[in-house]
């Protein structure tokens, strides 16, 4: 079975005056698992519903294997969908639930039975074929929903927050199960979630959305290592964001705090935002060389695997620092009031201009040019 490609071209969908999906374009290659990620209300679920055909776009085109499906009703799109609420048919047994799509396709009875058996084996529910959905646990119901969606050999599998209703331990198992199934069968898959960890664990590529717009598309590492705007930096890894001014050099003048010495030099002048991830900020003693800023500990929270310090730089500006909480490399726990210096390396520092576009570091770029010249 060949996997399908899916393409969204400049999709717009408004609810009243509000654009829930605002000019979204996306190319999904065959067999890829793409995760739509973002806070609630960012347009990710609307995008999924547009792909499924439950909503029609106000503008733009949706193409499946390079044929437009924008005008096709949901029942002609050949997509398997798994909902957060499972959405099983409560009056039908597990087996009849799984067989539903095959019956709609007028598949021969023998073939249907065989396929249902195969699906039951796949999700390890052979012994539950005759049960009703309400007699199953949440995790089992979700596996039935998955089997039901896969039974029809969908061209695209759509997963709408499939793990949100499961408890934490089960969620991890189910995430792995979905990933293995998806990879083994090479099904093009779109999944929606608001959970960053879940998204990172499953995605070939992430689509981070905010306010109906795509903020950044790329593999999880890319969003982590090269955020394209402050929103991406804050959402992935919970970066500290400091707004201020830069005047072509290594100093950022925050709007409401003391100057920060940047790790790289920048040629830009004007408004700028600095993003630094809490895990990138190491704490030192006053007088340590290479300090980016100085402040005092306001709060120390030990969370087991990590220890977090809130560092106050000024009345209106605090930064969060996170270090390992256990083991030989554990960060010391500092009492409130301790004076500390903050340190981070050039690679962990991201600067954005007034339009939230990345500002490249001057020094890094120059060294890069020199290297290219040598080669």
């Amino acid at each position, binding site marked *: 079975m060949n996997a399908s490609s899916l393409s969204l071209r400049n999709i717009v969908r408004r609810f009243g005056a509000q654009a829930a999906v605002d000019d979204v374009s996306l190319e999904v290659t065959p067999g890829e698992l793409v995760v739509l990620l973002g806070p609630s209300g960012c347009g990710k679920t609307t995008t999924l519903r547009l792909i499924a055909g439950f909503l029609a776009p106000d503008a733009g085109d949706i193409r499946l294997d390079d044929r437009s499906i924008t005008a096709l009703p949901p*029942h002609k799109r050949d997509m398997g969908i798994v909902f957060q609420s499972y959405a099983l048919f409560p009056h039908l047994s597990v087996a009849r639930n799984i067989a539903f799509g095959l019956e709609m396709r007028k598949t021969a009875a023998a073939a249907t039975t065989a396929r249902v058996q195969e699906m039951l084996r796949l999700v390890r529910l052979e012994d539950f074929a005759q049960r009703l959905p309400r007699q199953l646990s949440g995790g089992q119901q979700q596996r039935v929903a998955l089997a039901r969606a896969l039974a029809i050999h969908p061209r695209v599998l759509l997963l709408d927050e499939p793990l949100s209703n499961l408890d934490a331990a089960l969620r991890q198992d189910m995430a792995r199960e979905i990933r293995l199934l998806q990879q083994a069968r090479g099904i093009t898959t779109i999944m929606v979630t608001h959970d960053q960890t879940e998204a990172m664990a499953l995605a070939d590529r992430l689509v981070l959305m905010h306010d109906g717009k795509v903020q950044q598309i790329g593999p999880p590492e890319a969003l982590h290592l090269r955020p394209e705007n402050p929103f991406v930096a804050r959402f992935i890894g919970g970066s500290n964001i400091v707004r201020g001014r830069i005047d072509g050099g290594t100093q950022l003048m925050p709007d409401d705090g003391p100057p920060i010495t940047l790790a790289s030099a920048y040629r830009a002048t004007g408004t700028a935002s600095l993003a630094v991830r809490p895990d990138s900020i190491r704490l030192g003693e006053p007088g340590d060389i290479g300090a980016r800023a100085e402040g005092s500990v306001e709060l120390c929270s030990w969370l087991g695997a990590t220890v977090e310090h809130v560092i106050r730089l000024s009345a209106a500006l605090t930064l969060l620092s996170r270090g390992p909480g256990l083991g030989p490399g554990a960060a010391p726990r500092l009492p409130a009031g301790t004076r500390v210096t903050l340190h981070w390396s050039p690679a962990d520092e991201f600067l954005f201009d007034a339009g939230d576009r990345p500002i490249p570091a001057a020094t890094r770029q120059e060294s890069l040019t020199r290297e290219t010249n040598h080669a």
Partner: protein
Amino acid sequence: MTDALARVEHAAVSLLVSLGVALIGVPLVLTLYLSVFDEKLILFPPHAYTLDWYSQIPATFGASIWTSLQLGITATAGSLLLGVPAGIGLSRHRFRGKTLISTLLLAPITVPGIALGLAVYIVLVFIDINAETSLTGSLAGLVAAHVMITTPWVARLCLASLATHDRAAEEAAASLGAHPLTVILRVTLPAMRPGIIAGGLFAFVISFENLELALFLSSPGVTTLPVAVLQYLEYHIDPMVAAVAVAQTIGIAVLLLLLDRFVRLGRVVR
């Protein structure tokens, strides 16, 4: 201290429950008692007991019971045909005038039956005069009027049964290749089953017991049981009426019990 309080509380609750049961039960028991008096007039205490009144029911009220049954069944069918789609539409779709339709569907419950009966009577007479039909006093006229007062119950109960139903199930069916009509038949209607059954039952009972509309719309030959009972009471005061009441109560109770076996009514009607 708390023990004493709990005991007082328990006693109070028991007393209230007993009062409630008595309020409902005493008239029923008295009716049952009356229906076996072997007296031409209602005298107390009776000098003997008999089941004769029951055996006379078919002869006295047979025709009107038959009319009421026909009317009840037709009106129930009619209100299901209108009320079930109305429930689906109101629950699943947004459209202009939805609130208006929703209000109109409740209106017949809020208007006094006697006013409604008079209004329907006038309308039917008007139609008869202008279109040269004979709807007034016909079974068809009665059915139409009863469908009007029973449909709101069906629609409301269907709406209620869909309120707890997850819409995603319908979307899942569509994504699995089910045509919109198939979705309604295979997913929506099964989910509404308790609402449909309870709605149909309510419709039948309301139609069967309705007096106000039938008072205006009955005619010789088309007389419902409640109207026939009222007419009988104008000339006779004997245990016959009590016997009919008991028979009707038992009939409807049996219907309820039968239905309760298929749907837990307590779960549908809260």
